[in-house]
């Protein structure tokens, strides 16, 4: 039986403690001296439940030059993740059992994180007819989240049907809230900066009007709805009001919306082009508060790798999106008070426990419960690192943080007790390859 002892970690809620892992599960905690165990020195490190990302674009099948399930899984492990939810906008679209099973299988073979496919809401993401949600839910991929992300489910009747139907398979609709008529031709956030730069703006009301509508639909239908990449103060206000009324609404925020503003567009460097766009400082402050107080439930990366030719070009021609998996924890810590004042329990709540609960990933987001799968991350709270695109594990390099020094480093990540990252470096994973 393989045994590993993590020695002297700062374990949430228990102070300094050792963790004994055997056969992929946590079996004992406390002060431990186990003779036949591999020892991991975790002195000075914080042990977190493994991070869970609700929103990852792995680009496979279809855009393997930008990312593959393997490379994306490696990037996730480096970022401290043990599970990622893979968005459905691949080619072909993940709107059938065959595609979601292919993605899940590629994830198992890669072996770095649990890859949970998200199914499309509508066939081909076309917003006309429901995808085979029941079949995807019953497939081996056991899909529970459905999203047309990249596109909004604009048609209110289709959204109603999706919310109703998802409930029958214990599913959840994750909405990309964007009233597309209000964002036609848009290139960045509509505000003083877009007015100045001569770019067509993406008004915040395009997001808030859909969120307001879907909150009312969910309330009317007594259904659950989840909002992807919430980006404005008003969105957070609508969600807070909905929660107060008891509507089953959850929301995520992306790291970049917690730290960057539309001012980043001023040099017209498309690395800062993202959808929804970077907003204003007032939005950033509101989103940080909403994340801290639980109005926004989770940090999700919207990890969106793009090949060089899709980013090293003029702004208008560039695809929206930025890398996120390897930098998310650092940005979340920064947004939740900085490494000196950070509440690690809150970090765990927003990056692991709650996203695991939203996605229905029962093996993740545990607080070191005896008997639970050992999916965890060791973080150096005093670590600092400088981001270089070409040093990231992703096949793409479109990080907005290039050259920036960020707080907190991931020292190790364990998936079912096996280290996928040790001393900050990827290990040979235990995939089925």
């Amino acid at each position, binding site marked *: 039986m393989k045994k590993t002892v993590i020695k002297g970690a700062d374990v949430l809620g228990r102070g300094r403690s050792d963790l004994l892992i055997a056969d992929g599960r946590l079996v004992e905690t406390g002060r431990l001296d186990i003779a036949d165990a591999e020892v991991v020195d975790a002195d000075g490190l914080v042990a977190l439940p493994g991070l869970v990302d609700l929103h990852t674009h792995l680009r496979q099948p279809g855009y393997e030059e930008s990312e593959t399930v393997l490379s994306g899984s490696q990037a996730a492990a480096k970022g401290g993740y043990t599970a990622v939810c893979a968005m459905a906008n691949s080619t072909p679209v993940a709107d059938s059992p065959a595609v979601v099973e292919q993605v899940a299988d590629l994830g198992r073979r890669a072996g770095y994180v649990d890859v949970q496919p998200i199914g499309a809401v509508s066939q081909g993401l076309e917003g006309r007819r429901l995808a085979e949600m029941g079949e995807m839910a019953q497939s081996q991929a056991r899909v529970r989240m459905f999203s047309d992300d990249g596109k909004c489910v604009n048609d209110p009747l289709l959204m109603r049907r999706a919310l109703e139907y998802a409930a029958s398979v214990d599913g959840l609709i994750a909405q990309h809230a964007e009233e597309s008529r209000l964002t036609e031709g848009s*290139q960045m956030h*509509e*505000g*003083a900066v*877009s*007015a*100045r*730069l*001569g*770019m*067509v*703006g993406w*008004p915040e009301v395009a997001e808030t009007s859909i969120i307001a509508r879907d909150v009312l639909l969910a309330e009317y239908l007594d259904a659950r709805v989840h909002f992807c990449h919430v980006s404005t103060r008003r969105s957070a206000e609508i969600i807070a009001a909905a929660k107060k009324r008891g509507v089953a609404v959850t929301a995520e925020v992306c790291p970049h919306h917690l730290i960057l503003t539309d001012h980043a567009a001023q*040099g*017209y*460097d498309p690395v800062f082009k993202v959808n929804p766009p970077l907003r204003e400082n007032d939005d950033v402050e509101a989103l940080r508060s909403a994340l801290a107080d639980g109005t926004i439930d989770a940090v999700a990366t919207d990890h969106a790798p793009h090949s060089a*030719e899709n980013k*090293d*070009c*003029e*702004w*208008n*021609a560039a695809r929206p999106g930025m890398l996120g998996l390897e930098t998310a924890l650092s940005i979340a810590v920064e947004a939740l008070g900085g490494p000196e004042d950070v509440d690690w329990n809150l970090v765990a709540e927003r990056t692991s426990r709650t996203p695991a609960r939203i996605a229905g990933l029962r093996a993740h987001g545990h607080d070191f419960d005896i008997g639970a799968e050992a999916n965890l991350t060791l973080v150096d709270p005093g670590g600092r690192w400088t981001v270089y695109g070409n040093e990231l594990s992703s096949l793409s390099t479109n990080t907005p943080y290039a050259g920036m020094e960020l707080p907190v480093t991931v020292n190790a990540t364990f998936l079912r007790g096996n280290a996928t990252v040790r001393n900050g470096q990827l290990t040979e994973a235990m995939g089925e390859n």
Partner: protein
Amino acid sequence: MKHLIDTADLSREQAELLLHQAEEMSRAVSGREVPKLPALRGRTVVNLFFEDSTRTRTSFETAAKRLSADVVNFAAKSSSVNKGESLKDTALTLQAMGADAVVVRHGAAGVPERLATWLPSSILNAGDGLRGHPTQALLDAYTLQQRLGRLDGRTVTIVGDILHSRVARSNVWLLNTLGANVRLIGPPTLMPRRIESWPAEVGYDLDAALPDSDAIMMLRVQRERMLGGFFPSEREYSLRYGLDQRRAARLPEEAPIMHPGPMNRGLEIASAVADSPRTTIVDQVTNGIWVRMAALYLLLTNGDDE
């Protein structure tokens, strides 16, 4: 000054230097039998136009030739760009050709900045999307100076489709830098949101703005905008924002009437007004050459190379 991309980047000193240099160019060339200076002999200026614009391209070409530069016209529509070549590949081709200056017009804002990151050449923005057209603003300011003397404290009213106008954007910042008050008038649907952050007054009533305008600049209505539903009809636009004789008569007597061209006669400007001696439209074309000569000269020689 290495590039001329955005009038908002120009200090008052730089803007005045450009206008002063334009005047010098006018003096140096006017009256010469061969209207040509040797200042840029041996230098290569590439006109890289992704959008059709015969006027602007010809003006830059004339300016470069009068400074004895070699001019390469790279009409992107008939080039490999049509075969899918990226902007960056085009830039690398220009670099291989040894372009000293690239004059670029493109339908997307920010293309000049992107070229400046890839190329060692000086970049002159000849219009990028909705963002800027700095030499147009400079020639407008030059023309206004000719008519009004100094711009300090003068009120310039710009009328029409501010939202889609790179001419308006470049003028707002340049005229403000030069001390003028800028007033923007047009339908609210054609004003950018958060325009209050601009150094300009904003209003919707043209009639009220006329009597205390020291100059008026009418913008072209792009007829394709009608499809976007920005205003109910051409008739209503013309009635509310068109400059007819009755309105022109309410301007102060000396106030020049400007238009960047081409004009929609009968829509934003009545023919009788367009053809009156108060308009500066022909002067603007001539002054465009002096201003573009000045810009090319200053960017390529730092003003210290005769």
